[in-house]
């Protein structure tokens, strides 16, 4: 509690004012630019610098002049320290205070001087970096009984050699005296020499990719150290479904990401932090709104209607609100991609499984971590609508086309309103979006405490995250509290609890502000002459979006509480058997209160304000029992896991609303004050899932690994008779590296071949789809409300069953050059059948849709992960991670084997494909005859006559133009460390996807609204971009207007650039900290794409533009 108070106080004192922060950040931004340039230089030079040693300057090369007369040795050394950056270290008894020395002024090397002083006095010295350690030569060389009494004060030189497990020397290994910062590095042949203060000094050997080793010198002057390689990698424990496995024994395709990797990027949630970091996982954030989430797909989309999102498991329990989780609480995240890994989750596994494991307390000293950051978000490009004069020109051209306008003398015929005419003549222009868009902010304050005794261990943490969006009153506050406890009740019996509370306090602006601001006539003044806001600017028909900025007029408040609490009891009756029972409860309650004043965009055209409140509560209960048995018999290892699972979730909602209340001050707190349109509703949805599963693991000589899994799922949402399904899988792996014939080679340090096949399902179906419902239609007789139940246009399907995906996965894990290069390659081919899709029915049936199991899809792809250690020296290291994902997604079958134009689904193409006419330009004056043959005239959009029948028809001339999914994506992350500095640069690319630009579509040929700045056709401007303005043609009636919006959405962005500095331990000791890191970071620092002024990750929307974030923060621990 004491700690909590402290951290809360810390939170308040650390808040920066916006102005200060902005100034600070501007400075940081410059630094970021600089560090980016540095990285580029490093990349371009492309040299993998391999420097092994960084000894201090050679003493014989340092020339100094000192003049001394009868000085003590101490003062002589001080003189040398003054003139050089050398420092002397020695015990008091080494230098006799009575010894005096004298020097003349001539220049000499330090070596000469030292040799002169010490040689005759029995004092030896040794250089470590810039430190020179003095020792008593006579004592050191003496051995035997005589010296026992003074052993503790010995200073001795140790010569050593560090080798790897194969006896090969390891250069560049850091050798440090424990508890100090002084140390040396091994040279090219793995040798080192170090002078230590005592014969039982403990030396710490560390090297990237090798297990850090601590060993006492034990009085030996010559030692040989064998370091164990990559133990962290292979012995690393990876969490899989209902258990853990060593990485070396994995048979499936699983990627594990550790907690520190997740906190590298300042992100609003853990998934966003991992963009581009996990091969095969596509993560995009398409909205810049406060609290906006990301969409995650693993190995492409396979479902047309059912959910394509992966299953999230948090500490063993299904929990979809991953955005609640404080990144700092995460110990690891595992991505289960192939069917053999996911089949254990049965009907929920087809879209991949993401397992999140939170940190736990450990026995020992209490550890406290705290961190904070503050950042400013700004638009990552935004395309502007036309200015007043640009709009006026479009309108004139439109009227010119119909013969009304020929020159500005005709302006009064076009701008019939005197005020408009004056505004046009004066060149009046307002940049409407600029009036609402402003910079946003992100800030985070977190703290955690962990510790424990032999029996009880605990971890608790808190986090406060606030995001301000790009509009006024657009914000999201998130508070997260966590407590994880483990308690050993008896020797074989353990219990524990993981609890997380997340609370959101948000006000979200969602009123289509920019949509309005992009269409309001730009010369309309938002203000009346008296300075008040004009309700309908220019007496036009667009409401004034600035009314929405008033916090009392547009309220859309969300208060959301998510509670996840999981208790377990674990019993180990005998050595190899574990019986565990998990009970997980998730509760969620959400209140959305909304008030829209009479002048807001949504109400300006209606009568009076709208107040509403919606409440929902969701709860789910998961009870799982897991029995694990593991046994090793000679060369055979066997593991059995048996599971039962029961999951029940219910959700109910209620809402009420009304319009026209007298005063806005009552907001949504007095719905009964609304005189009109009172509405109430409530709803209940519930579903249950019952399952049993079994997994067998078998290993022969630890080289040949086999995993067999089967799970049976029964679900309430499916039709009777189809409720149960069985999901089997098998996987095998061969550890080639462990074969005798591999012992002789040095190229590979790891080589494992994996193969798996399995079937997983998709349960992303809403309940009650098997039933045909009736809908309540508002009705009355004689003005008295009467019930009218009509047929639901979505009719029930009594034959609904599971959607099944079978996946083959072949993977290779490799390590090269003693694991300087590691990684994996996976190929997969997944077939999904019985696709659940909302089949569009002909309207002549009276129904519109039904959910049916029709259709098949297929995803094939390759995933490459490559980790390299490019530079590794004592002070400087540079490692890179590269991931590459290529997925080929396509629908392979649809009802009756024909394309579904109604839904836009096409066999052989991805789920979200764009099907339209193919614009090839604009009909030019010279092509008038040709155009006329098609029924068009110069200035109209020209589309390809695909079937060549001389007519443009919907049936024959529409083609697939592209798809919303990328052809490939990649991530390239670099970590550079130099002494206390660390720099992370991450590049993320998504290539080949298409999007529909709302901006490009915003062209009004009759200038009835404002729109995009485009290059439109006129007789004098024979462009092929946009058709001719025409006052008599609305956008809706402009033929082929939809073809104007398609754009190449490929992008490469510098997702993250972070520069951090760890304060040296010596500086921290005085303030009782063990670690303090300060950093600056830039997110979405630069984006490269073919689209101007727009971040294509936003997928075309101009309503919620994406942002750049520049921030500064600090982390500390003690």
């Amino acid at each position, binding site marked *: 509690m004491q700690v909590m108070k402290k951290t809360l106080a810390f939170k308040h004192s650390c808040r920066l004012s916006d102005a200060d922060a902005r100034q600070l950040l501007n400075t940081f931004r410059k630094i970021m630019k600089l560090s980016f340039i540095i990285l580029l230089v490093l990349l371009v030079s492309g040299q993998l610098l391999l420097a092994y040693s960084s000894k201090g300057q050679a003493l014989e090369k340092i020339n100094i002049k000192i003049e001394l007369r009868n000085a003590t040795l101490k003062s002589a050394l001080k003189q040398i320290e003054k003139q050089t950056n050398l420092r002397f270290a020695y015990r008091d008894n080494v230098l006799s205070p009575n010894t005096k020395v004298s020097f003349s002024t001539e220049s000499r090397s330090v070596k000469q001087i030292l040799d002169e002083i010490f040689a005759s006095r029995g004092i030896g010295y040794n250089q470590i970096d810039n430190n020179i350690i003095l020792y008593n030569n006579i004592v050191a060389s003496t051995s035997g009984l005589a010296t026992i009494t003074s052993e503790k004060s010995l200073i001795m030189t140790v010569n050593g050699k560090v080798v790897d497990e194969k006896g090969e020397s390891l250069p560049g290994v850091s050798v440090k005296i424990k508890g100090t910062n002084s140390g040396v590095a091994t040279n090219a042949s793995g040798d080192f020499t170090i002078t230590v203060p005592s014969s039982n000094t403990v030396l710490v050997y560390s090297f990237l990719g090798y297990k850090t080793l601590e060993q006492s010198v034990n009085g030996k002057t010559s030692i040989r150290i064998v370091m164990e390689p990559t133990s962290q990698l292979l012995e690393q424990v990876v969490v899989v479904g209902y258990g853990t496995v060593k990485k070396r024994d994995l048979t499936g395709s699983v990627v594990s990401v550790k907690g520190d990797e997740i906190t590298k990027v300042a992100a609003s949630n853990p998934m966003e932090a991992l963009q581009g970091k996990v091969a095969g996982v596509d993560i995009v954030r398409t909205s810049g709104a406060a609290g906006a989430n990301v969409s995650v797909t693993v190995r492409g989309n396979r479902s047309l209607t059912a959910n394509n999102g992966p299953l999230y498991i948090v500490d063993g329990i299904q929990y979809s609100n991953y955005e609640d989780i404080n990144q700092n609480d995460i110990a690891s995240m595992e991505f289960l991609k192939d069917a053999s890994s996911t089949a254990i989750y049965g009907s929920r596994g087809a879209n991949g499984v993401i397992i999140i494991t939170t940190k736990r307390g450990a026995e020992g000293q209490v550890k406290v971590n705290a961190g904070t950051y503050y950042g400013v978000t700004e638009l990552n490009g935004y395309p502007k609508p036309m200015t007043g004069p640009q709009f006026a020109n479009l309108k004139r051209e439109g009227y010119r086309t119909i013969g009304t306008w020929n020159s500005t003398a005709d302006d009064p015929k076009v701008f019939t309103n005197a005020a408009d005419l004056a505004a046009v003549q004066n060149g009046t222009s307002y940049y409407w979006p600029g009036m609402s868009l402003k910079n946003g902010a992100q800030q985070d304050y977190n703290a955690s405490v962990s510790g424990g005794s032999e029996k009880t261990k605990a971890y608790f943490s808190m986090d406060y995250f606030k995001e301000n969006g790009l509009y006024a009153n657009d914000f999201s506050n998130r508070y997260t509290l966590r407590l994880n406890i483990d308690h050993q009740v008896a020797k074989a019996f353990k219990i524990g609890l993981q609890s997380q509370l997340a609370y959101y306090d948000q006000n979200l602006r969602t009123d289509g502000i920019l949509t309005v601001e992009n269409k309001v006539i730009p010369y309309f003044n938002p203000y009346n002459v008296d300075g008040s806001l004009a309700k309908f600017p220019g007496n036009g028909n667009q409401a004034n979006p600035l009314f929405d900025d008033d916090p009392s007029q547009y309220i859309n408040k969300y208060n959301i509480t998510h509670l996840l609490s999981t208790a377990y009891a674990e019993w180990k009756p005998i050595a190899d058997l574990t019986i565990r029972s998990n009970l997980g409860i998730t509760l969620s309650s959400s209140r959305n209160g909304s008030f829209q004043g009479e002048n807001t965009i949504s109400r300006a055209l209606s009568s009076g304000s709208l107040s509403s409140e919606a409440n929902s509560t969701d709860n789910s209960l998961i009870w799982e029992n897991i029995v694990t048995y593991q046994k090793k018999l000679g060369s055979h290892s066997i593991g059995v896991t048996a599971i039962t699972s029961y999951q029940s979730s219910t959700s109910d909602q209620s809402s009420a609303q009304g319009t026209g209340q007298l005063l806005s001050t009552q907001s949504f707190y007095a719905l009964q004050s609304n005189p009109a349109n009172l509405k109430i509703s409530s709803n209940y949805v519930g579903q249950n899932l019952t399952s049993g599963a079994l997994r067998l693991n078998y290993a022969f000589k630890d080289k040949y690994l086999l995993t067999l899994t089967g799970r049976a799922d029964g679900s309430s949402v499916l039709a009777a008779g189809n409720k149960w399904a069985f999901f089997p899988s098998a996987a095998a792996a061969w550890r080639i590296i462990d074969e005798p014939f591999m012992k002789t080679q040095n190229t590979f340090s790891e080589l494992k071949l994996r193969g798996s096949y399995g079937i997983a399902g998709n349960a992303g179906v809403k309940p009650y789809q098997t*039933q045909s419902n009736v809908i309540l239609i508002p009705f009355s007789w004689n003005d008295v409300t009467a019930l009218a139940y009509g047929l639901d*246009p979505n009719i029930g399907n009594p034959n609904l069953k599971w959607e099944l995906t079978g996946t083959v996965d072949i993977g290779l894990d490799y390590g090269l050059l003693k694991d300087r290069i590691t990684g994996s390659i996976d190929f997969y081919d997944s077939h999904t059948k019985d696709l659940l899709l909302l089949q569009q029915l*002909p309207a002549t049936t009276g129904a519109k849709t039904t959910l049916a199991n029709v259709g098949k899809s297929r995803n094939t792809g390759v995933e490459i992960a490559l980790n390299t250690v490019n530079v590794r020296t004592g002070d400087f290291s540079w490692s890179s991670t590269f991931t590459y994902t290529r997925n080929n997604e396509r629908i392979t079958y649809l009802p009756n084997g024909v394309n579904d134009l109604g839904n836009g689904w096409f066999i052989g193409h991805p789920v979200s494909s764009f099907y339209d006419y193919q614009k090839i330009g604009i009909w030019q004056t010279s092509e008038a005859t040709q155009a006329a043959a098609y029924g068009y005239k110069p200035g109209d959009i020209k589309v390809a006559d695909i079937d060549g029948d001389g007519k443009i028809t919907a049936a024959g001339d529409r083609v697939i133009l592209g798809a919303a999914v990328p052809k490939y994506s990649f991530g390239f992350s670099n970590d550079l460390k130099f002494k206390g500095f660390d720099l992370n640069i991450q590049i993320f690319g998504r290539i080949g996807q298409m999007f529909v630009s709302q901006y490009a579509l915003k062209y009004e040929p009759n200038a009835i609204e404002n729109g995009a700045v485009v290059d439109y056709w006129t007789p004098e401007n024979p462009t092929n971009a946009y058709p001719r303005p025409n006052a008599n043609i609305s956008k809706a009636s402009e033929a082929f207007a939809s073809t104007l919006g398609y754009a190449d959405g490929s992008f490469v962005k510098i997702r993250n650039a972070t520069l951090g500095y760890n304060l040296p331990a010596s500086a921290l000791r005085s303030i009782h900290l063990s670690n303090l890191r300060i950093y600056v970071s830039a997110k979405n620092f630069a984006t490269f794409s073919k689209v101007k002024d727009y971040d294509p990750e936003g997928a075309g929307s101009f309503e919620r533009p994406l942002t750049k974030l520049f921030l500064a923060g600090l982390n500390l621990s003690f």
Partner: protein
Amino acid sequence: MKKLIKRWALLLIAMAIAFSACNKKLDEYNPSNLTASTVYTKAVGFETLVNAAYTYTRFWYGKEEGYQISEMGTDIWTSGTGDVYPSFTQYNNLQGSSLPGGDPLSLEWNNFYAAINLCNTGIATIGDVTDYTAAQKTTREAELRYLRAFYYWHIVETWGDVHFTTTPTAGAITEANRTPVSAFYDQIFTDLKFAVANLPATTSDYGRATIPVAKAFLARMYLTRGMNAEAFAMADDVIKNYGYVLQPKYVDLWNMGNLKNKEVIWAVDYSTNLTNNDLTTTTYPYGHSRGSNNGHLMYLMVYDQVNTSLLIRDINNGRPFNRYMPTLAYLNMFDQANDSRFNGSFQSVWTANKAGTFNSNTIKVGDTICYTPVATIPVASQSKKYVTYDLAKVYDPVTAIPIQRKFYISLSKFKDSTRASVAEAQSARDVFVIRLAEMYLIAAEAKLNLGDPTTAATYINVIRTRAAKPGRTAQMQITPAQVTLDFILDERARELGGEQLRWFDLKRTGKLGSRIQALNPDAAPYFKPYHLVRPIPQSQIDAVTNKDVFKQNPGYN
């Protein structure tokens, strides 16, 4: 070891019990929804089905999509600046565009067939209702049959020989058929005869089908199919035997306080409690995006742009969507001196609702500020006190094509000053689907077709007598010699303009093409004979699997 086995056995048993207990939980609990089988099998539930069957009329009557299809593309209307679908209005392109409620043809197609399926479901399953009396059963079946006929008429006249069925849809049907127009009418007549035989003569629920409602509609059907004797007899029966009377003054028909009057035979009764109407909401996602009666929005010119300092938008003048304007030919059909229907239908004077000055004249609230006469006023005679949009400022004198489409004399009979706010798009105005005046016109047209212009003139003169300005009755009378098909169409335009019948009237009389060519210069260049049926929505073509059978209407590919 024994102990261990025991433990294992216990564990397995416990797991098995837990498992089987959970298995029972796999039945769905669904208290928030009702299914057809639970609701429609009881009398109280079946009543809700019949109610629901009426609601689909609201997608056509009083809706922009309905006006677009039934009034536009005729001789009397053309596009105002605000027309969101001018290429439809002018037959330039009938496909692929959209209105706020959705593509007008798709919206109507989808909802008419949804209505048909509901009627089919009701007619097929009414026998399963256990607690109806025999009389109740036949009444409700008669209502459903009346409605089915009514909806099928809209379908068959709009799209021609498209899909027809009397079987309720079960499961995922993906095919559609092509049925001859005559088969539609066979069913329409069968259903209407059943309705006439089994409906009650009166109802306390305003808007429910009754015998005269079915008869009146049957009269329209007979006339449509050229069964003139039957048409006359049926119309005459309705005129004489059911107590309907013409309102004394034409303008009274449009008084918001007089909606439920004796001239109305059948109406879509929009509730004054707007939540009972059809606006799309979260609780009723399948509604219309604008809801209730939107007729008041469509025909008004932008009076609020004439002079923004003197005349601003207000409830009384209405919310002007500026969608449609009359053709010059339509305006010329009126005998302004004698026919009260001109002023009863149109607004040509707007008065200031803000005080100020105009051309140095002081303008008080209530002073005329805009005048749109059907005349050409010499410039010298034009008032300096208000703005005039005379014919010369609206229509090209040679081509009759509008010069500008913002300021013009406006159809005002649907205006509703009882709306809560100036922006309120929903009006509670009932939409008159069939009113007594139409019966006189049906009778007259049938008689003319039967070669009896004398009787025809008699029936028309009843209408014209009511329409006459005070003291002008004699001038309004016509002689049998004046009665022609074109005269009747002109008379229908004067009497029923905007009431969603025009396109059907022109199609029935075979005059659609010729009158567009003669009277609507905007649409004339584009109209083709194949336009006598509308294109089938692409979504339907896309969704059917028997594409070789169910094809687009000719001319539209």
